[in-house]
């Protein structure tokens, strides 16, 4: 098919990259949503339908009426995660999506671990927990409940240590994050649900979505 193009054969182009096929890493998305019935279902359904795998999801109210905040962690390359963010923007109830992976943030999750601990090793378990800045919140003859907060990695480390004693039950909330410093994800969203504020300037859009450099901003 050399007649198909005007270029000499030695300039045969490399194959096009398939968006989303780059190196995957952990991303954290903060999603502000209108607190309307079914909004969690919409977000979860979208992520499933678009073939994104959520690692953790934490949902709570914010200080603003009718606005909830979701913190999602997921794995993917930058383009894939940007695509996830843009798909989330298609949901009418989604006010703002911000990928904070590259930002300076405080990130913590909370875990309860019910560990087998009797008279023989209870003190040892408590010692470990204290080293990890956790605390014991319930004691029974054969077990204790440990409460710990920290980053995902810190909790992983504590859990790994406790596993040697026997974990009867484990529950983790998934990560929540907040930007360090004075900046606020909520304020920079520029969209109060009640205030009907104008859409952010193009400049702000630019900052929001230029993560992987594939769009010039804008939301639908």
């Amino acid at each position, binding site marked *: 098919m050399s007649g198909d193009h005007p270029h000499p054969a030695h300039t045969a182009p490399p194959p096009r990259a398939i968006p989303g096929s780059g190196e995957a890493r952990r991303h954290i998305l903060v999603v502000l949503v209108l607190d309307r019935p079914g909004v969690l279902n*919409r977000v979860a359904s979208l992520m499933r339908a678009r073939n994104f795998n959520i690692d953790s999801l934490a949902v709570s109210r914010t200080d603003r009426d009718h606005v909830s905040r979701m913190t999602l962690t997921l794995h993917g390359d930058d383009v894939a995660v940007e695509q996830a963010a843009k798909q989330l923007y298609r949901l009418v109830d989604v*006010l703002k999506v911000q990928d904070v992976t590259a930002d300076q943030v405080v990130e913590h999750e909370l875990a309860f671990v019910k560990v087998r601990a009797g008279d023989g090793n209870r003190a040892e378990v408590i010692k470990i927990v204290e080293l990890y800045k956790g605390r014991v919140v319930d004691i029974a003859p054969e077990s204790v409940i440990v409460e710990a907060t920290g980053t995902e990695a810190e909790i992983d480390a504590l859990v790994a240590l406790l596993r040697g004693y026997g974990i009867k039950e484990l529950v983790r909330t998934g990560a929540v994050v907040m930007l360090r410093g004075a900046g606020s994800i909520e304020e920079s969203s520029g969209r109060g649900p009640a205030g009907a504020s104008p859409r952010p300037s193009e400049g702000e859009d630019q900052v929001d979505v230029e993560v992987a450099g594939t*769009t010039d901003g804008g939301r639908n």
Partner: protein
Amino acid sequence: MTMTKGEPARPGAAAPARGRRSHVPADGTATAAAVEHARKEMLHEVRSRKRTRIGADALMEALIRQGADVLFSYPGGVILPIYDILGDYPEIRHILVRHEQGGGHAADGYARASGRVGVCMGTSGPGATNLVTAIATAQLDSVPLVAITGNVPAALLGKDAFQEIDITGITLPMTKHNYLVRDADAIPHVVAEAFYLAKHGRPGPVHIDLTKDALQQETHAEHPSLDDVIAGLPGFRPTIEGHPRQLKLAAREIAEAKRPLVLAGHGVLIAEAWDELRAFAEKAQIPVAWTLLGIGAIDEEHPLAYGYMGMHGWKHVNRAIQSADLLIAIGMRFDDRVTGNVRTYAPYARIIHADIDPAEIGKNVAVEVPIVGDAKAVLAGLTRLVHPVEPEARADYLAELASLRRESEGSSWHGSGAWRDGLLSADYVVTRIGELTDHVATYVADVGQNQMWLARYTRFRRPHSHISSGGLGTMGFSVPAAMGAALGNPAAETWAITGDGGFQMTSQELMTLAADRIPVKIAVLDNKKLGMIRQWQEIIYAGNYHSSHLPGPDFVKLAEAYGIPAFKATTTDDVDRTIRAAQAVDGPALIWFEIAEEQNVFPMMPAGKGLSDLIETWGAPEE
């Protein structure tokens, strides 16, 4: 009987007919009229003006305020409150379809032909699930549709009540937005919001599920202003204007390109940007190729109109894409039927991609210049920024493309060549339908070979003249969608062009066409096959023709059973005569074209291959 007690109040009143005595005074006085009215009201012959306003009224008022003039619907238990008051709203023409899917596609066709929002309705449970295929079709093709369903009374939700299904759970991933309404007072706002969402930004279907009690409750809720609606949607602020910096970058790319090509998609038609597209193409002297749903974005007779791209697109168009150094994609989404294997797609091209939906940009192919915005605004902006180019400056490029085009269109396998063997061929039929309708009718495709033949050979000269289920590929779409299209744009002659397979999926709507005298001309291209399935089986599955042979009925008799005049064509000579005969019918008509059974659509890009890997023939041409 004690009725005789009700003697006429006054002596001398006219005796009731048939010698029966009535208690109703028949003396023409106001009292008599009032009594007569009360009697008719009791018998549901007339309705009192003084009844309370219920949720169903709020719904109908809201639809009228939104400009809806046709409602495609099928009644059922929980939406009876609507049917009970429907007669009070003559502003809305109710089309009683024969299946909810037909109603959904009809609303879709209405929307695509008119540019307005289509409205369909069904009852709970099966009525709602029957709408699902039509809603999904509208979602994949960005069609503004408002689908209304009833549901069981709120107190019964979740109890597996009769005809209860979680329909909002079902439509959630296939709508732009959906609502479950349990309160009559919410209806005006929800309907206004649904219409706003359906047609603004990237259009799409919006589904409203209303509980029966919400329809029955008395309500005084007022209709919101547009400002109220927008204020209630803080998360929905579509970007219309392209970012000036991106437009400048795009203009620079265009100035440097030697082999630019515009790829026009559905977005151009949705944005009504055909004038802007033509102006842009003319100023910059850039040929325009189009996607399946971009057909009609530019008049096919325009010197810069280059052709239909993709899996069954023209070879010259796909070659132009593969050798382009710049693609200017407007309102299209690099669907796999357009690109084939992305890794080998347009290997020399930089890409400018403009779309109103940011999520479409960078989704399937990486692009150099993204522009988020409405096609009309973006094209107008680009036209302002690009330097005028004289045709002579692109003489070599345009001449090369013209040469590719002559080669491609002149190929003996340009169609199937079947007519050369005396067989009636589908490409010939659609070519003649185009010519005998001056290329300005509304042509509604079904899915499969018929769809590709129509796209390739009909030659479209008017925006919105071509309607096709592109994204979902919904067989059975053609006849009901044409029904809606005929009502959405009554000024245009409307043709449903369908295969025998798709036709048999929704042929019950023949009765709707007949009963409502909707003048759709139906061309059934009958090869007694699921033709595209058969084609794939021949080429990809080693001729293992399982289940692609599809015997059908006598389509003339079938149409006539519905009271629809019908004609049969079996040779090339019959084609013009039957088309003209169908056109002469005042109302719906059907033509049964018995076409060659083993005709294929060429060229063909096998799934997973690239645009340079087109199959142009298969085996030896028939002797």
